[in-house]
């Protein structure tokens, strides 16, 4: 069992009446890419802020690199590269100033690597953040986050609202990070195709509760999508106990289940349904099924 870079146990947090997190566990083994998925408002940002030490856990524990990020922000944050959807880079700063500013905090800042990234992203030193487009801002934030080669990369909805070219840059950065020996990535996204490509662990948050945390392969192989055809069109929507979600109309229906394939198929056969197809669902389909289930 490799060491855990992020180890969150039993953390809850509410804002007034609204429960943002409810006894949530999350762990990121060293060298893994953990994709945190959930709807908007599910609690992803709140959870990631706990990793950064911006929330003091009221119950439960948060350990990053084995340390408490609230008590020891210097050594914890010094090894984290952070990129968020909000992109709160100061408007008035120039790219060059941003780079020399960030450099002052991280002894492991690599000037040549930063230069290489800057040239690749086509950002000039004199451009002010204010004049950058969203995509360029994301790239600038990315340089600041990865140029010091952090041990842990934390990304909060990095691709939201960005064009495919910038998204490629961000995904490449993720892959490059993890391909370097022993570095870890924790990112939240609701672009599930990206999560499926790049993660090896997935954690699903729904209304503050962690629905599942497991290696991605296990999630994909344990869920099944069964297509069934009936002789007569159904009058009322199909309902199967063991299934997560049934979708369809008339004679053809799709059933998504988690590991209970034999039982589901038995029930379908009892209803005089003919199984026409069995396939592995995409993460997107699994997510939608579980959210609505």
């Amino acid at each position, binding site marked *: 069992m490799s060491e855990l870079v992020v180890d969150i146990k039993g953390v809850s947090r509410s804002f007034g009446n609204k429960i943002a997190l409810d006894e949530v566990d999350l762990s990121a083994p060293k060298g893994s*890419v953990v994709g945190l998925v959930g709807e908007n408002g599910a609690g992803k940002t709140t959870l990631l802020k706990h990793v950064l030490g911006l929330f003091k856990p009221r119950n439960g524990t948060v350990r990053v690199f084995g340390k408490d990020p609230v008590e020891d922000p210097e050594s914890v944050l010094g090894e984290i590269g952070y990129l968020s959807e909000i992109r709160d880079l100061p408007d008035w700063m120039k790219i060059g100033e941003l780079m020399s500013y960030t450099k002052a905090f991280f002894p492991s800042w690599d000037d040549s690597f930063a230069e290489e990234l800057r040239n690749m992203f086509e950002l000039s030193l004199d451009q002010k953040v204010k004049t950058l487009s969203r995509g360029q801002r994301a790239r600038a934030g990315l340089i600041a986050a990865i140029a010091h080669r952090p041990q842990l990369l934390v990304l909060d909805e990095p691709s939201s609202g960005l064009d495919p070219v910038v998204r*490629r840059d961000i*995904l*490449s950065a993720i*892959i*490059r990070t*993890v*391909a370097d020996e022993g570095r870890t990535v924790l990112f939240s996204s609701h672009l599930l*195709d990206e999560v*499926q*490509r*790049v*993660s*090896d662990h997935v954690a699903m948050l729904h209304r503050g509760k962690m629905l599942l945390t497991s290696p991605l*392969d296990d999630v*994909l*192989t344990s869920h099944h999508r069964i297509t069934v055809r009936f002789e007569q069109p159904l009058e009322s929507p199909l309902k199967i106990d063991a299934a997560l979600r049934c979708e369809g109309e008339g004679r053809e229906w799709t059933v998504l289940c988690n590991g209970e394939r034999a039982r589901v198929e038995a029930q379908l056969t009892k209803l005089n349904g003919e199984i026409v197809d069995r*396939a*592995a*669902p*995409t*993460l*997107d389909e699994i997510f939608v099924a579980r959210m609505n289930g």
Partner: protein
Amino acid sequence: MQIHITEADGTPFYQQVVNQIKFLVASGRLDEGEQLPPVRRLAEQLLVNPNTIARAYRELESEGVVASKRGAGVFVSDSGSPLSRKEKSRILNERIDALLTESSQLGVGVDSLMKLIEQRSKNFDSPRGGKS
């Protein structure tokens, strides 16, 4: 090396990579002894987790399609090995099954299908000029 992977396929990514590399080898687009791109570079190109590529390479190696040379990288093995012939049959069988399913659904019988194949092969220009 042109490989494309997609989430909509239904097969795991590593399996898609394995299948496509096998196809490239079998169809001759990858020569024997040619080096495959390093794990990291292929991962960046396809935008997938490097572990996926590593796993694909491991599986290909265990099936003898490729072999890794210590420190130098991963290379395509000699195609004369019997396993690659087995692979060719497997790939073709898959295509044939799909074709048979399709024609059965369309209500076309096996004999008509064979005639269609003959007709088409007269116009067909094989890229490698018919290997056994």
